[in-house]
């Protein structure tokens, strides 16, 4: 009797020790999904979660070692660590994709989070002999891409920001768009007694200008909360405007207190310290891996200025990740991101033979930032992917030539078959935009069996590059 009692006690201790050891071997990865609005972050995260959940079933992941070697035990969504945040709307997204008339997941309007437990059998190393199973904790954060553009504001003061805005309002299509705002500005006496109501009205006009820019596909919209305020709708911290006018005449050291200018400056400062900084501090620190999604095709569609602004916005954001120069950011983004993927999203919107060009285009867009990161020892991969593949490739004869074509459904659900056009390998010359331009299509999500995994392009290779070593 006592012998068996001892035995069961011993067995229990053994299991306990085993559990503790397993817990110690568990790994934690925080994946940063970076991208401007419309780059496909939500669709990407939905697809990533779907591929992992279906990893043992219908997911087609030939390049993901974990599933290739059949070491994936299972994936489960668990309670997220930060309960103040919204839950990532995976189920809703899948519902939209599985509907009889499939639609894309609704874009994010706030911050949401998802945590996955990936249970797997270790394939190599010491842990292989110690434990039969390990668990990788994967945290992914979804947030509006508009807010990402607030990041460069951390490195600017009010005069610099005003100068930037002034300069920006003179560029291309923005000159027309900013006309109402600049007109309204003329009534404001910057150095006069502060008038909160007038400032609020002007801020409203400024916001209108920013939303107009966004509607015209211009990506460089700052401050991001002006177009997507989230929980700050109506708060005074969003009621400020840049100083438009002759900066040289202004004595920035001696601003009369109680003036409109002083109020705008104070609110700008508050926006930086009370809105932007805490946001990034809370959610953007200690990432391990990063993927930067860039929608080059839509920018090409929208024209030269939109393309240039996209390029500038991305490089600007990436420069904020530049740990070397800015000590403030160095603290926030500890250089723990050791692997980074630049991904041109929506690779299913072009024919396969153009993918190489798309990758080259993206590489040329982030060329400098890439070199700098590589110098810092970050491992970088540039790729073209489609989180959810919405088109099929076929061949046809067109004017006596073999032509690759795409077939799918447009956003109204009508079937279309087309050759979407070539992708330039680098930024096209100004004359090109005037003479030809681009018209890459928009596809609706594919019709499919809801029980199967989402079709994709290169999600498996992205998973392998970003998570493969953690799941070894």
């Amino acid at each position: 009797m006592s012998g068996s009692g001892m035995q069961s006690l011993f067995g229990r201790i053994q299991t306990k020790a085993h559990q503790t050891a397993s817990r110690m071997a568990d790994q934690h990865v925080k994946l940063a999904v970076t991208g401007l609005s419309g780059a496909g972050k939500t669709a990407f995260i939905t697809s990533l979660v779907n591929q992992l959940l279906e990893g043992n079933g219908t997911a087609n992941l030939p390049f993901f070692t974990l599933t290739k070697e059949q070491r994936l035990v299972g994936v489960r969504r668990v309670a997220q660590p930060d309960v103040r945040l919204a839950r990532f709307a995976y189920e809703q997204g899948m519902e939209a994709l599985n509907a009889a008339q499939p639609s894309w997941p609704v874009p994010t309007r706030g911050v949401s989070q998802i945590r996955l437990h990936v249970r797997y059998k270790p394939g190599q190393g010491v842990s292989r002999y110690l434990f039969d199973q390990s668990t990788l904790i994967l945290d992914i954060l979804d947030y509006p891409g508009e807010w990402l553009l607030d990041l460069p504001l951390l490195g600017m003061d009010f005069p610099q920001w005003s100068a930037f805005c002034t300069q920006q309002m003179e560029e291309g299509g923005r000159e027309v768009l900013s006309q109402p705002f600049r007109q309204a500005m003329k009534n404001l006496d910057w150095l006069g007694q502060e008038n909160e109501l007038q400032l609020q009205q002007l801020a409203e006009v400024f916001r209108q200008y920013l939303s107009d820019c966004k509607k015209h596909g211009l990506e460089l919209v700052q401050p991001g909360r002006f177009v997507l305020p989230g929980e700050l709708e109506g708060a005074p911290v969003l009621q400020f405007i840049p100083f438009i006018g002759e900066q040289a005449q202004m004595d920035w050291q001696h601003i009369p207190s109680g003036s409109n200018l002083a109020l705008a400056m104070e609110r700008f400062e508050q926006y930086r310290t009370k809105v932007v900084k805490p946001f990034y501090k809370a959610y953007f620190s200690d990432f391990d891996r990063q993927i930067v999604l860039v929608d080059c095709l839509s920018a090409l569609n929208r024209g030269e200025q939109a393309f240039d602004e996209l390029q500038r916005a991305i490089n600007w954001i990436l420069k904020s990740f530049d740990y070397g120069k800015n000590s403030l950011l160095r603290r926030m983004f500890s250089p723990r991101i050791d692997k980074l993927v630049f991904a041109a999203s929506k690779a299913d919107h072009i024919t396969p033979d153009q993918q190489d060009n798309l990758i080259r285009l993206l590489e040329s867009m982030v060329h400098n930032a890439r070199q700098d990161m590589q110098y810092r020892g970050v491992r970088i991969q540039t790729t073209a992917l489609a989180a959810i593949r919405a088109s099929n490739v076929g061949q046809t004869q067109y004017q006596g030539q073999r032509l690759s074509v795409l077939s799918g459904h447009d956003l109204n659900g009508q079937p279309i078959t087309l050759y979407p056009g070539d992708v330039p390998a680098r930024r096209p010359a100004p004359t090109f935009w005037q003479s030809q331009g681009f018209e890459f299509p928009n596809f609706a999500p594919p019709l499919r069996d809801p029980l199967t995994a989402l079709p994709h392009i290169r999600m498996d290779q992205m998973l392998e590059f970003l998570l493969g070593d953690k799941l070894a």
Partner: protein
Amino acid sequence: MTDSTPDIQLKPRILLDTEVAEQPPQGLRKAVQVPSESVVSEFPSLEEDFQVSTSRPQGHSKPGKWFWLLLLGLLLGTAQLGVTLWQGWQALDFLSMAWAALLLTLLIAALLSVGREWMRFRRLEHREHLQQLALGYSQSPAIGDAKDFCQTLLAQMPRGSETHGQRWHASLEQHYTDREVLQLFEQQVMAPADKRALDEISREASASAALIAVSPFVLLDMLLVLWRNLRMINRICDCYGVKTGYLTKVILLKKTVRTMLYAGASELLAEASAWALGGSLTAKLSTRMAQGLGAGVLTTRFGVQALKLCRPIPFIAESEPKISVIAAGVLKQLRGLERGPQASDSKEGREA
């Protein structure tokens, strides 16, 4: 038509209809709307593909002067015998005619076999060329003819690879680049062949280790190892569909030894230190066991080198076979042998 405009060769005709055709870097094709009925199937079937892609690129190689000398001798001999045969017919010397006919048959057979050897030699040389090509494809981010290339490789693979080949073909997607196609090919078709070859190597290594450990004569040791190694090379060649003749085998052996001597020098150093570190391990073995282990490791090294030569593509995503892993297996088997009674028996036999 605007066919006469000077234009880049890469762009198809639809581009010429647009106004920008004169600017080569900006000459991008426009979107084209196509009626969906005109679209044909996504992929040609495996058989169709085969018909397109069975032409093989030819690698050039130089045989030695001895080969030509031998060939010349054989040809001259054949001619001489032909003349003798004719003369015998003229002189009605039936005995010499019979002899000549016999010799002639033998010579023709020899010529044929030399020719066959020559073909096989060429094919082996071609492997190197294939490996170079595969290396090129494995680094290419574009969509080119890696699929056709893999299909030529598949055609050379031995029987039994067809199912793997079909699985590979089924897993292909239109958007895969050359690199991805080749990686999938390695994963789906090469990996099973690798596994078979490695099993073969470890079996032969264990066998030769065990044989050395129990064999009583030194001369017999050498013969045994030689026999085992030749057998192993045959088997490895079978795994990758390399047809071996005598000449190819000799060349393969020569190449294997050469790569082991030159390219393998650093590897040898690394391993030697590993073995030195594990000195306590060898110390625990008897002399015979140690000799056996040495022979086993040598066979393994030999086998792995032969594998690398026979494999039509280099190792891309899959990891190269590790000698230490196979050697560990050999050691385990030897230990089992030592615990058995035969080991001590043979030991006495040798000392006697």
